[in-house]
């Protein structure tokens, strides 16, 4: 029971990260290997606000979200769009964007190492127990979960109820056809990439309230986000949310039953199962 | 004629999302026959070719090569069993030379040559399709028609028993068309079985023993070219009700 609740709390938080990557990969078609670094950068923002300004870590959203939005906008506009242009087909774009974002990931890690050093960073925020069904859980985890759920809900509404959201979904389904119905595909892709980056960074803030991080841990979160997105089916928001919960549960189970140091192994195990049995994603239709 | 069946398509269907692209289609091709697969645009002809060559798997039904079931096998196995094809949208290997493109067909499949032998064999195929002059050319320099020739040479390089040609004659001028028709009938003389997707009616009349006509994924007529092309339903499918 404890595992179940902790797992759901964690999984809900992951779904925020998965949303970020879904926007970047599903809509903008960029397999962003620097995704986790954006997350860690957001977490640093929260850490900084909390330790130096003595404010709630969530206040850092005020500058982290716009900052990440602008940064990712610039990255897409000036670093990735040239690749989109020079690519002759989807495969070439994939290879190029993988390489480019892999390079960026290292550059980000380098910058963060310079600015913050290589230390682990953690702070204790709302570190008090609340009782759910009689067992105690960290209040920070519960708050993180609620914040994530609220943000995911907001994003979901935005995608389904606004014109921009419609356009984004159209690009996700078929960029060429979206272009034919007068959707500005490059602009939408840029927007999706920037928004995805912002969501990811906010995800970092949320995670930092209960996880310990360091400058080079981004790759682990990139892996997790990628695994979730693939398990859910690329571009499938509902699938991503369910996959997040599954990952949250699996990690919590491994952490509490075997060893907390093996959470990545849990993620890999899920990934392996997906690859072997449902490479098209949980709800994806089998492509031939 | 009591010739044996080379390829047997039995009740095959293929669905793309909500679209039934091939709908419970059955037909058989006899050994050494030229079968025309015709029908209006979007009627599912290419999809049938893809199902036979193994590029796509059917959602229902079975396909047999002789008495061997191939509809559940991957494309490479089907190729090794002696089925070769060209693509409606030509697929040339861009970073290989023209000769290497053809050699590719003769190394891993139904024909498995290597070394000097494969070069010579591939050269002969290139000459046969009229591309003997451009052996070492990079593929970037080829015209569309030349690309189609190279692709046919690649298919021939596997010495196929069954050859699938998807609108191979499309876009040729009248002289080239005649050369193309002669080439295909010479392939048939060698004992190959050919399935031809074509819109060029002259070619169909002069080459095909029989035609299968498709519309919206289903078979609407089958018979000799004269019979099928005169069929009311076929005319309606191609031209609309007022002409039928």
């Amino acid at each position, binding site marked *: 029971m404890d595992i179940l609740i902790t797992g759901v709390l964690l999984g809900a938080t992951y779904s925020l990260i998965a949303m970020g990557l879904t926007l970047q990969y599903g809509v903008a078609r960029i397999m962003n290997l620097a995704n986790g670094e954006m997350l860690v950068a957001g977490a640093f923002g929260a850490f900084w606000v909390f330790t130096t300004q003595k404010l709630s870590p969530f206040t850092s959203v005020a500058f982290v979200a716009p900052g990440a939005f602008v940064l990712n906008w610039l990255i897409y506009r000036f670093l990735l769009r040239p690749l989109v242009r020079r690519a002759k087909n989807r495969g070439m774009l994939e290879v190029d964007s993988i390489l480019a974002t892999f390079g960026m990931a290292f550059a980000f890690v380098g910058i963060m190492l310079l600015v913050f050093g290589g230390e682990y960073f953690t702070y204790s925020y709302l570190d008090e127990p609340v009782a759910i069904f009689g067992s105690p859980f960290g209040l920070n985890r519960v708050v993180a979960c609620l914040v994530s759920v609220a943000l995911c809900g907001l994003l979901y509404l935005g995608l389904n109820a606004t014109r921009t959201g419609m356009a984004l979904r159209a690009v996700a389904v078929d960029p060429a056809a979206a272009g034919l119905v007068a959707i500005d595909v490059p602009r939408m892709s840029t927007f999706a990439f920037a928004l995805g980056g912002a969501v990811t960074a906010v995800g970092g803030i949320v995670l930092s309230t209960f996880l310990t991080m360091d400058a080079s841990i981004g790759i682990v979160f990139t892996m997790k986000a990628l695994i979730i997105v693939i398990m859910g089916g690329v571009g499938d928001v509902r699938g991503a949310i369910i996959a997040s919960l599954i990952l949250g549960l699996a990690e919590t189970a491994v952490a509490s039953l075997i*060893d907390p140091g093996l959470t990545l192994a849990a993620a890999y195990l899920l990934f392996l199962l997906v690859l072997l049995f449902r490479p098209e994603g949980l709800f994806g239709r089998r492509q031939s | 004629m009591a010739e044996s069946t080379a390829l047997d398509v039995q009740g095959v269907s293929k669905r793309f999302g909500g679209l039934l692209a091939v709908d419970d289609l059955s037909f058989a091709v006899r050994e050494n026959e030229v079968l025309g697969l015709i029908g209006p645009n979007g009627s599912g002809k290419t999809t049938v070719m893809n199902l036979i060559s193994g590029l796509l798997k059917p959602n229902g039904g079975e396909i047999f090569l002789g008495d061997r079931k191939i509809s559940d096998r991957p494309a490479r196995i089907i*190729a090794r069993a002696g089925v070769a094809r060209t693509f409606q949208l030509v697929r040339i290997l861009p970073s290989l030379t023209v000769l290497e493109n053809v050699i590719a067909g003769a190394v891993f499949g139904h024909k498995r040559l290597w070394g000097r032998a494969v070069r010579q064999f591939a050269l002969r195929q290139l000459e046969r399709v009229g591309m003997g002059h451009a052996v070492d050319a990079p593929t970037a320099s080829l015209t569309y028609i030349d690309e189609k020739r190279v692709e046919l040479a690649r298919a021939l390089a596997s010495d196929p028993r069954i050859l699938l040609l998807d609108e191979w004659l499309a876009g040729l001028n009248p002289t080239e068309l005649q050369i193309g028709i002669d080439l295909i009938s010479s392939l048939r003389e060698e004992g190959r079985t050919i399935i031809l997707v074509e819109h060029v009616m002259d070619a169909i009349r002069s080459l095909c023993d029989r035609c299968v006509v498709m519309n919206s994924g289903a078979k609407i007529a089958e018979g000799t070219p004269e019979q099928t092309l005169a069929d009311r339903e076929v005319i309606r499918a191609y031209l609309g009700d007022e002409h039928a």
Partner: protein
Amino acid sequence: MTRRETVSVAMVAVALAILACLPFLVDGYLLSLAVGIAMYTVLATSWALFSGPTHYISLATAAFYGLGAYVVAAGVDVIPYAVLLGLAGIAGGVVAALVGLATLRLSGVYFVIFTLGLAELVRQIVTWVQNNLTGSRGMYVLTEITERMIFWELLALAAAVYLIGWLVTRSRLGFALRIIGNDEVVAAHVGINSAASKLALFVISGTFAGTVGAVMAPRFTYIEPSIAFSPELSFQVVIMALLGGVHRLWGPLVGVIPFTILWEVIAGRFPTQTVLLLGIAFLLIVYLIPNGVVGRIESAIKLAGRSVKHG
């Protein structure tokens, strides 16, 4: 063999023989630089054997390398070193085979993702095993093996990589990979088993990386997961191979030599900024010389040839 090939083989043999004398001429700093170059030559060349023709980008070199090093660390007191080298190669090959079996029949994206975290995964598992079985964080690798011997071993491995690479290029397998890299649909339709061909090459490259890790292990003296499975290694291998060019067997070498030397200088001068600089160097290469130096030179030669013909 054609005449040209005979000449190339002879030249390579002579070059190797000369290089083998190097440890008698230099030592200390220069020798360790030479070891670095030899190591990256083997790693980058074997990486390019697989990733060059298939465009599948493997980010897992560090996983195989670390595993190889750990095989030596775990067995150095009980098993002869030469046997350990073989075991390390097998370990690398087996892990590569498992990864390949799970991912190579799918599109390249799955493969990249799987390899991206692989070093981290193996590191977690090794750490866990170590904590639970030995109770210590690191291990000592104490051997009699000198830097000179390491250099010779690497040189032998380099010779083996080139030999295998050359054989593969001439073989059906090499031709199959070129076709796969161009168009997988055509590959399947001419009868190629794409997954098996890719798997074969990936196993070769994993075997080499594992063996290199084992060869380098004595140099560490003390091995700890965070050192053995450093993600920077995977990264550097990719950079160097891309810098040189992956479409020729000797392409990676052209990247390895300048980059290793440059890196020595940079790591010495800006020890805290290496990761950042590595990232920037990588980006510069991806954006400015996507086909590598060798690709650049070759297209320049082609252009020149064309303008001579037309001029």
